[in-house]
């Protein structure tokens, strides 16, 4: 809201602080002053009135009242005197009807005759311009002027275009239309409240006037409207039809229904003064449920407890009085007050505490750390393991990315996803919630391949699954690797090693990789204790082709919540032997399909005490090896913790290993 400093000054006998100081004071005690601009000999304060004060502070008098309260100054209200024309009675001109009294809390109207439409007087034009409004003609300008002064939106209709001498406040019909003053046509419906005459809509209630009864140069008789509508209705309609106006933002929150009369009289007075218009006798005023001031009792102990500072009761009384809040009863522990109806935002003792606190000054409250039991805070396990995982991946050279939670049809179709759909998406690219992290990581890779030839990226984040029952959120971990210089085999084995390392660091040692039947030829499923937790491998060409990526990509995709069940910080030290180890190598042929990891496990299981490690150091298929078979060489370390193993025991162990391999895998020693 733009507030003219010069205008504001007219409400005080005594001088106000300089504009810059006043802006600062308002910022600290009421509303943030966002801009301060010099305009001629005036200063314009751009004040960000808080939404709950839209009803009383989006106007100069409202801000003047705030100044008066904070600076403890007396305010001079404008004098309103009317000279009514006894010959004409307002009620003979017009009947007003409110169809549903829940929609319109009050409707006040006045009739002005003999109106001469012309430009408004200089000071009104200047003030409107200062506040960012464009002068139109005397009647419209005065209506706007009164809104800027009192905060009550007013509307003026040309009487000659009101049919049937009637104004009806009603919901629109489905097929009605209105063209507004800005020449935009809106299709109305039965959720939109309108001001109509006997036949047609004249205005969208509380939001915008229509063209049909617009004030123009031929206007002689004016109907002034000063009303109060259901705030919720105005707020929702304005947003639904995407038309938020100076009027609607004031009607939206906490506008005092008692204000309509003062404002309409003020406008009538100004129009009369401007063009000698005749004010028809009487005011049309439909006000079914009069709003009265509220009484609230505040305990001083609550005030102290919440603010954390003791304010003397005399000071409290003084602040409340300056805010025009009437003290009805006061004793040692409590105060009962009556709140003026223009402060519709004050309903609870807490609201009063805020009023007292802000006027008193929050800067006077000394910071004080909370006291209490020093119970230790429990670690959030999810966050702990996620952080740990991110750190391990970082050590392995992976860079973390964050992608949007949204994907579009492209990702959905290429990856065959079944995502949750958003009713009101930001755009088509963001139509669904992502059920997988991989599609976006592949997109990241595509973009980064323009600059980098090798990189590793990952994301650990929420995805959203349609079929989950209780909550539809799932934490997943996925990564993508690109390296144009390395062979696919090398990248794959490195990735496999990295995943082993990651799981080991998370306290998981028993990991199985298994080929899945239908899946991609170059990918493996990952199992922990028999549970499938994810997969890894080369991204299929089918997908890369559709995304138009020429380079090979690899990736992993893990259900992190499943992994987390197995994560542990436990570790047990394995005693280190000081006796010399014996190293033996064995080579042999086995079926091509035998999993190497199974062989290692089999060897280790022969003797847990003396076989320290078994490591595959060569695998060969091709020349000199029969088809369907592979040649495997394994390095085995034998060692005892108690003694030096003699060659006899080593040979015995080695033979046991061999017979186990022969028995289990049809091993043919070479």
């Amino acid at each position: 809201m733009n507030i003219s400093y010069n205008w504001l000054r007219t409400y005080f006998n005594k001088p106000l602080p300089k504009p810059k100081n006043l802006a600062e004071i308002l910022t600290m005690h009421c509303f943030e002053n966002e801009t301060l601009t010099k305009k001629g000999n005036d200063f314009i304060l751009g004040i960000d009135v808080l939404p709950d004060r839209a009803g009383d502070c989006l106007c100069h008098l409202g801000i003047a009242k705030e100044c008066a309260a904070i600076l403890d100054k007396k305010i001079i209200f404008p004098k309103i005197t009317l000279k009514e024309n006894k010959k004409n009675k307002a009620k003979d001109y017009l009947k007003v009807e409110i169809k549903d009294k829940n929609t319109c809390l009050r409707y006040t109207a006045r009739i002005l005759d003999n109106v001469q439409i012309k430009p408004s007087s200089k000071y009104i034009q200047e003030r409107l311009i200062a506040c960012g409004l464009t002068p139109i003609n005397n009647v419209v300008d005065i209506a706007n002027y009164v809104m800027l002064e009192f905060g009550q939106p007013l509307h003026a209709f040309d009487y000659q275009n009101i049919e049937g001498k009637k104004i009806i406040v009603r919901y629109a019909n489905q097929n009605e239309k209105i063209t507004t003053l800005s020449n935009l046509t809106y299709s109305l419906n039965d959720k939109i409240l309108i001001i109509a005459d006997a036949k047609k809509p004249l205005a969208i209630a509380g939001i915008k006037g229509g063209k049909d009864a617009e004030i123009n140069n031929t206007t002689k008789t004016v109907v002034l409207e000063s009303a109060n509508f259901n705030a919720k209705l105005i707020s929702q309609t304005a947003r639904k039809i995407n038309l938020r106006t100076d009027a609607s933002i004031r009607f939206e929150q906490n506008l005092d229904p008692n204000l309509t009369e003062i404002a309409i009289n003020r406008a009538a007075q100004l129009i009369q003064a401007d063009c000698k218009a005749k004010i028809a006798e009487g005011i049309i005023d439909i006000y079914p449920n009069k709003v009265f001031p509220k009484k609230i009792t505040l305990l001083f102990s609550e005030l102290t407890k919440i603010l954390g500072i003791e304010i003397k009761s005399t000071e409290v009384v003084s602040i409340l009085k300056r805010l025009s809040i009437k003290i009805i009863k006061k004793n040692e522990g409590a105060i009962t007050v009556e709140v003026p109806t223009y402060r519709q935002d004050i309903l609870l003792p807490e609201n009063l505490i805020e009023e007292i606190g802000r006027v008193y000054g929050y800067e006077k409250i000394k910071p004080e750390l909370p006291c209490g039991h020093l119970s230790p805070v429990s670690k959030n396990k999810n966050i702990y393991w996620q952080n740990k995982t991110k750190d391990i991946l970082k050590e392995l050279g992976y860079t973390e990315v964050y992608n949007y939670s949204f994907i579009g049809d492209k990702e959905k179709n290429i990856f065959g996803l079944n995502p949750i759909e958003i009713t009101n998406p930001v755009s088509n690219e963001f139509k669904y919630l992502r059920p997988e992290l991989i599609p976006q990581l592949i997109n990241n890779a595509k973009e980064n391949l323009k600059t980098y030839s090798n990189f590793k990226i990952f994301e650990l984040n929420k995805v959203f699954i349609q079929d989950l029952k209780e909550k539809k959120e799932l934490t997943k971990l996925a990564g993508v690797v690109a390296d144009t210089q390395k062979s696919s085999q090398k990248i794959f084995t490195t990735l496999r090693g990295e995943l082993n390392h990651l799981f080991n660091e998370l306290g998981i040692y028993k990991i199985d990789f298994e080929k899945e039947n239908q899946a991609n030829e170059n990918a493996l499923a990952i199992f922990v204790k028999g549970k499938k937790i994810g997969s890894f491998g080369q991204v299929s060409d089918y997908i890369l082709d559709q995304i138009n990526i020429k380079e090979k990509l690899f990736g992993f995709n893990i259900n992190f919540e499943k992994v987390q069940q197995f994560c542990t910080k436990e570790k047990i030290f394995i005693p280190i032997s000081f006796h010399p180890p014996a190293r033996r190598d064995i080579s042999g042929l086995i079926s091509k399909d035998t999993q190497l990891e199974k062989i290692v496990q089999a060897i280790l299981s022969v003797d847990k005490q003396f076989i320290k490690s078994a490591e595959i150091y060569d695998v060969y298929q091709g020349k000199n090896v029969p088809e369907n078979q592979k040649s495997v060489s394994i390095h085995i370390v034998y060692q005892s913790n108690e003694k030096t193993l003699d060659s006899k025991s080593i040979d015995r162990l080695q033979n046991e290993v061999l017979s186990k391999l022969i028995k289990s895998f049809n091993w043919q020693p070479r």
Partner: protein
Amino acid sequence: MDFSELKDSIQKDLSQIKNSDELKNFSITYLGKKGKIRTLFSELKNVSLEERKKLGQEINEFAKTVQNEADKLEQIFKEREYKLKEAQNKINLDLPGEKIETGHLHPLTITRREIEDIFERMGFEVVEGLEIEDEWHNFDSLNIPEGHPARDALSLGKTLYLKNGGLLRSHTSAAQTRYMQTMKPPIRIVIPGRTYRSEKIDASHEINFYQIEGLMVAKNVSVANLKAVMQVFLKKFFEKETIIRLRPSYFPFTEPSFEIDMTCLICNGKGCAACKHSGWVEILGSGMVHPNVIKNGGLDPQKYKGFAFGMSIDRLTMMKYKIDDIRWFHSGNLKFLKQF
């Protein structure tokens, strides 16, 4: 050869030794078991006992000096040899350091951890809310009932709804009552996480952004406590002596409500372009938990008071690293990510 002749020849030879081989020869010739100094002793047989004693001592002392000289030379030659070897395996000291490729954490992860860590040290437990929320938790429970302009502002246009029900939380505050209902006061929690709004994406607006919500509910909690906790947090986070101030604000779920400003870190409060010459930067929203919210959390507002605050992790990250455009965070661009 008598003693003095030997002395002269030794002095002469010593001065001519150029390398360790020559030194070895010298040592054999003079200092060895069959060296010339030793043989001098055998020649002493012919002199008187008295003389022998005296000369013997002299020769011994002389032998010691020569040995010292030889040792010194050996040391010099050794050093020279090592130098020579090093020179042969000369490392080019001019070449620049190799580029070390490591992984990087996302800057938002780094900031989030720092924030969580500070609050944990102050006794706040880190919890997570749901990203798919219901209207009650996202709005109603927070004293934003149907028809409230704040509800309209969020629900008509800004909030994303899902086809099969539910919505995407528009603020982490949505988790407040969830935890109030399950925890026993004193409650001290922070709720970090991803939030969602329908925005036109630009340098300072995103559809996914990150907030951290803080909540303390206990028998005695005041604005003075809020002020202290916020001041400590900001000092620790920015590692600077910053001062905060509270300004009146409005949030439906707190009363009184505050905007918290801190002294501008760029100009230390003197006023600069970054703080629009005010010396202050708006940093977070906060307030005393509204009694209706405490009630919705299943607690008695007469008995329990609380403070709540919410801040943007994106904004703190942008301030800390001077990032000028919020869109970098979801860019997936390694040129950006590798800087952290």
